[in-house]
């Protein structure tokens, strides 16, 4: 049982992401970065305060996502 757990850890936790997984996470990171920047900048342009609040909400959520994605990508070694 212990051995199985060890194998599981080696296969699923310790191992690097496959290349295509890293690519997808990287693309998500880029998308989130652009969204976050755009939403922050455009807040200075909108008139409607509710829309501005929603844009700020998006910025906060994107910050969280970017941190998570960076953490995930930090697990892998660059090849």
């Amino acid at each position, binding site marked *: 049982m212990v051995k199985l757990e060890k194998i599981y850890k080696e296969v699923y936790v310790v191992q690097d992401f496959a290349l295509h997984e890293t690519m997808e*996470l990287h693309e998500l990171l880029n998308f989130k970065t652009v969204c976050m920047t755009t939403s922050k900048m455009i807040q200075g342009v909108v*008139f409607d305060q509710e829309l501005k609040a929603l844009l700020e909400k998006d910025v906060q959520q994107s910050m969280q996502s970017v941190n998570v994605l960076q953490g995930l990508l930090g697990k892998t070694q660059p090849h």
Partner: protein
Amino acid sequence: MNYEKKPINAIKKPMSNDYLEIENSDGMPGLVDSTIALNFLLTAKSGIRNCAVALTEIADPEARTEVRKMLNVAIDLHAEISNLMMKKGWFHPYQVSEQFKLDKMSAQAALQIANMQLFPGDTSRLGTFATPNY
């Protein structure tokens, strides 16, 4: 702010080239906000699709959980944006003819703006930034 009831419809006459004249800016706030909101909505939609597509490519359990969380958050945000747009009268999912009318008008307004010489002259403002090596 009481522009919400007449968003894009406020622009009836052809847009004047004199964009610095204050009376030509009638209806501008609604036009700007509805355009930005539409952009926001489309980006949220792309975000949902990107997350879903990424999810089909990822096997790692931890990464899957995180991307799935992102997908759910993105879906909720998309719902909030479309609700706001419906409330403001920028988005009519149940009245297609109204939506078409609105979209035609904003396309027309966008064409008129695209035709303007908004930024004539040199827009490099490097002198005003700390860029001694340029």
